[in-house]
């Protein structure tokens, strides 16, 4: 494996991290905290939306984020031949 390959792999990894962590920040800190009052004017069934994000929604998204990350990285590892049998 060349040094160049390693650099490319790392760059792509960082890109994935930036995207996934932005979503992580958005659903918890933005939807659940900073914009909670604004979102609370919208209703999701029995919930106010901001409250729902803070006590339910953010957690669901966190779980999904990790599984998406696993999938993306497994694909990336294979692409660069860094996967282990």
């Amino acid at each position: 494996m060349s040094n160049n390959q390693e650099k490319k792999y790392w760059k792509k990894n960082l890109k994935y991290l930036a995207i996934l962590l932005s979503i992580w920040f958005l659903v918890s800190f933005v939807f659940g905290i900073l914009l909670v009052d604004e979102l609370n004017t919208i209703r999701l069934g029995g919930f106010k939306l901001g409250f729902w994000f803070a006590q339910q929604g953010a957690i669901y998204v966190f779980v999904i984020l990790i599984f998406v990350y696993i999938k993306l990285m497994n694909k990336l590892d294979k692409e660069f031949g860094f996967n282990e049998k």
Partner: protein
Amino acid sequence: MSIQVWTWILVGITFTLYIGIAIWTRAGSTKEFYVAGGGVSPLANGLATAADWMSAASFISMAGLISFNGYDGSVYLMGWTGGYVLLALLLAPYLRKFGKFTVPDFIGDRYYSNVARSVAVFCALLVSFTYVAGQMRGVGLVFSRFLEVDINTGVIIGMVIVLFYAVLGGMKGITYTQVAQYCVLIFAFMVPAIFISIQMTGNPIPQLGFGGVDENGVYLLDKLDGLHKELGFSEYTSGSKTTLDVFLITAALMFGTAGLPHVIVRFFTVKRVVDARKSAGWALLFIAILYTTAPAIALFARTNLIETVSNQEYEKLPEWFNNWEKTGLIKFDDKNNDGRVQYVADASKNELIVDKDIMVLANPEIAGLPNWVIALVAAGALAAALSTAAGLLLVISASVSHDLIKKMINPNISEKGELIAARLSAVVAVCVAGYFGINPPDFVAATVALAFGLAAASFFPAIVLGIFSKRMNKEGAILGMTVGILLMLFYMMKFKFDWFGGGTKEDWWFGISPEGFGTVAMMANFIVSIIVSRFTPAPPKEVIEIVANIRIPSGAGEATH
């Protein structure tokens, strides 16, 4: 059968199970003792991590905290789950690739310095000891209420059990008992939640019952907001903390979670980098089951409590009220002598004080569920407390036998000698934890929440910079960790223990609570680390190669000394 008989039966069965597993999986080498031989499957590791992580606080206290704080309780829900995203994306895979036994191992090698290693050992011990004392106290509390033994006897029974499987089995024993403990605790948490959700909303899934309607077609959340308004409490679905503080506390809990040594070491126990990622995913999924149910329980319990006691005649209250009054966790004082319970926000008129810790434990009784369900909750609470205590004790014993003795004091110690040292330090650690469980110093309750601030302020920046910056050197990391932890300790002591002149809420810097200050101390750590590293020599070539190596997942091999 009575609650007590049921509790003895269920606690007896689960404890026998844990001891059986411990005998079956005892550790024969240091590698098995520290990292379970490095061959745990991702699914088993996910289950073990979830049990390791969910402590007496998650099981017993959290739903109660949310119940009394409403929206403000969200900080725990987001904080204690969001940290896993950081763990999975920023730490776990790389630390697994690095492939050592402990967190101070990584800090010491990556920063090529025994000073850095010592600072890390100090932080690991500080964080773990404050945390473990609370667990032993939780064990004692459950024993005293459900089995009516003395709280101290309860702590000692818990100590003997943990001692048995942690000392005998090390990480290997702990891992497989934690798998069993997760099953016990999640079953114990979900069964009453499902029952109560059906009772109150007709929906068996608590997460949906949370947004459900009562028998009159009113949304439960709206109903509770209404009840709160009537009694003068602040609205359940909006908070009373400032936005800045909620933001910072959530962040401190997230970064702290990602920096807790007993959670991080769990990722050393799997075979490959891929498995480390997978186990983080499984772990959060298993944790999320409890964490999305807890706020539903909080809502049900709060509504139930208010409807059962508010303005009711004291003489006609159900039996559970008296049971819990005996423990001192519910207090009723008939101030206006009308024989009724006035439960209101105004402190001068309020006649009822309910300890938040009993909401989960008393909930099945309040909802009138069968005795075996109530006993099950006791067994689940014990599983949660014991699994976390064991994980913490392992970190403490590994810090002493591996990081201090093997790596610094006596590098020539034999494999056998190190294993004996590991077991001995586990014994000492259990005794110290038990002592604090029996004689809880006031600061324990205050510091358990702050352990997260300490972990965020010390480990998180050092580890993340160690992976993501090749330029980060020992000077930067050591100074950063020192500044971070001292700043956090200072703020905590000033505002929690009244040292350094003390101070009240009004004196908080920018209105930031000590719980939220971990985020500020962490930022200080990052800034100091980065600035100092720019003005001091770059790390040696071998270290830069280590960093390049841990970024590539293949060839993780086995964890070695």
